[in-house]
């Protein structure tokens, strides 16, 4: 880099502007390319329908799906169903997370609790949770309760096991330090264990979100009075393909929002990592 170039400013300014433009392009590139792949896929889909390469009875045109999607929201049909599924999801998740976190910490901290709970945890975790849906609907009816129970059985062991693994991985020298300052077990758990296990707990939470969505939808498809899964099966049974695909899109969007939300929460809880 020279310092005696009086004639250079104009050139250098150009260079800087150029660099800025290139920097902007580089920053925008992931969004541009990402959107491009979606646009291309939608275009191919529309073309496939237009040239009758697929039967619209099974795969309607994306434009039709989009129109149906809009009417679902403007017509208001979707809101009450979202409320039902949302209630099943959140009540189930709150119970799973609370019970899973507390039992996970106890399991990780006290060996006898681990030994006591182990067979039940392994069994509940081993059952394919979707296979429980028929019996749960028989026991708890076709309302909200049966889906809440499906969600709990799908998620509680995941949160529990991840939390317990986190407790086992707490750095021993921090526990020792805490003890040397006369901490009670509860104080050590609160000030050392809980902050340490955040990443493990969060990965349990993220897996649980996926399993809870599956539990709610499968439960509703099997037997329900309402909910997103109910809409899906009703649309499918009446061969209303645009509505079925529109509902699927809504489900996908919910999945993405929930997963992103969990990521945001994890970053927020661990701001000290910088």
């Amino acid at each position, binding site marked *: 880099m020279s310092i005696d170039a009086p004639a250079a400013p104009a050139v250098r300014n150009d260079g800087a502007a150029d660099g800025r433009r290139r920097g902007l392009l580089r920053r925008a590139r992931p969004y541009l390319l990402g959107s491009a792949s979606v646009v291309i896929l939608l275009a191919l889909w529309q073309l496939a329908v237009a040239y009758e390469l697929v039967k619209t009875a099974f795969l309607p045109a994306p434009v039709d799906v989009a129109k149906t999607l809009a009417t679902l929201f403007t017509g208001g049909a979707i809101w009450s169903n979202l409320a039902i599924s949302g209630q099943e999801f959140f009540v189930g998740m709150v119970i799973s997370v609370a019970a899973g976190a507390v039992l996970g910490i106890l399991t990780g901290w006290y060996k006898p609790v681990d030994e006591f709970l182990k067979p039940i945890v392994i069994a509940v975790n081993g059952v394919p949770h979707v296979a429980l849906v028929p019996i749960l609907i028989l026991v708890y009816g076709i309302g909200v309760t049966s889906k809440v129970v499906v969600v709990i059985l799908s998620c509680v062991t995941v949160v529990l096991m991840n939390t317990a693994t986190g407790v086992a991985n707490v750095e021993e020298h921090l526990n*020792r330090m805490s003890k040397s*300052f006369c901490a009670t077990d509860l104080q050590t758990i609160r000030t050392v264990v809980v902050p340490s296990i955040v990443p493990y707990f969060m990965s349990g939470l993220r897996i649980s979100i996926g399993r809870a969505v599956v539990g709610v939808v499968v439960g509703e498809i099997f037997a329900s009075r309402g909910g997103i899964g109910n809409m899906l099966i009703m649309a499918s049974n009446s061969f209303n393909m645009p509505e079925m695909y529109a509902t699927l899109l809504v489900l996908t969007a919910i999945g993405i929002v929930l997963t992103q939300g969990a990521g945001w929460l994890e970053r927020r809880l661990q701001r000290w990592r910088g």
Partner: protein
Amino acid sequence: MSVTFASHGTHTVAVDRVNLSVADGEFVAIVGPSGSGKTTFLMALDGLVGLSGGSVAVDGTVVRGPGQDRAVVFQDASLLPWRTVVGNVAYGLELAHRPKRERLHVARDLIALTGLAGFEAFYPRQLSGGMRQRVNIARALAADPEVLLLDEPFSGLDAQTRETMQSELLKIWDERKKTAIFVTHQIDEAVYLADRVVAFSARPARIVNEWHIPFERPRPLDIKQTTEHRELERDIWHTVRGG
């Protein structure tokens, strides 16, 4: 105040029949070969490690576990990475349910004393090794213990930072006048810091000899270069090697 300690186990004997009395306000350094049970000894003094025999007493009270009368300065700093400097320094006070105002007041005092002013809101990962050890020392002092137990706190630091920390520690110690038991394998460090140096043998640790260090306080760092200092170091070195 007296600390006495003795133990004889049947399995692995880390520390065997060590009798040590430390006077109130005395600075004792313990040197010995690596893995000689010096750290085990210190952890037993804090009550973190059980004894297989014998006892530890502070001011006549038998130690049964960690207590407010003792505080450890750990080798690896052991700071809570999700707490800022203030949060780490005030940790012991928080566990003791002291009011928030008092906690902050004490923490700020010690942060100033240990040369951490301006770093209150920093997280451990943002600090150098030397600064982390300053937080470690401040945290131990915050509980206002009678005895400070220091476990090779400067062993992970580079030579220059180590010397700075040694003279800083003496300044802090002059100010607070705590009884100090300092474990190290650096003989020059032991001689520079202590009123008395105790040499441990290899495992199982026993006391092989002890030296009273005659230097006046405050001690400038350059007394390390004096013949008297060097001769003491050499004498201790031969004992530790030979023992």
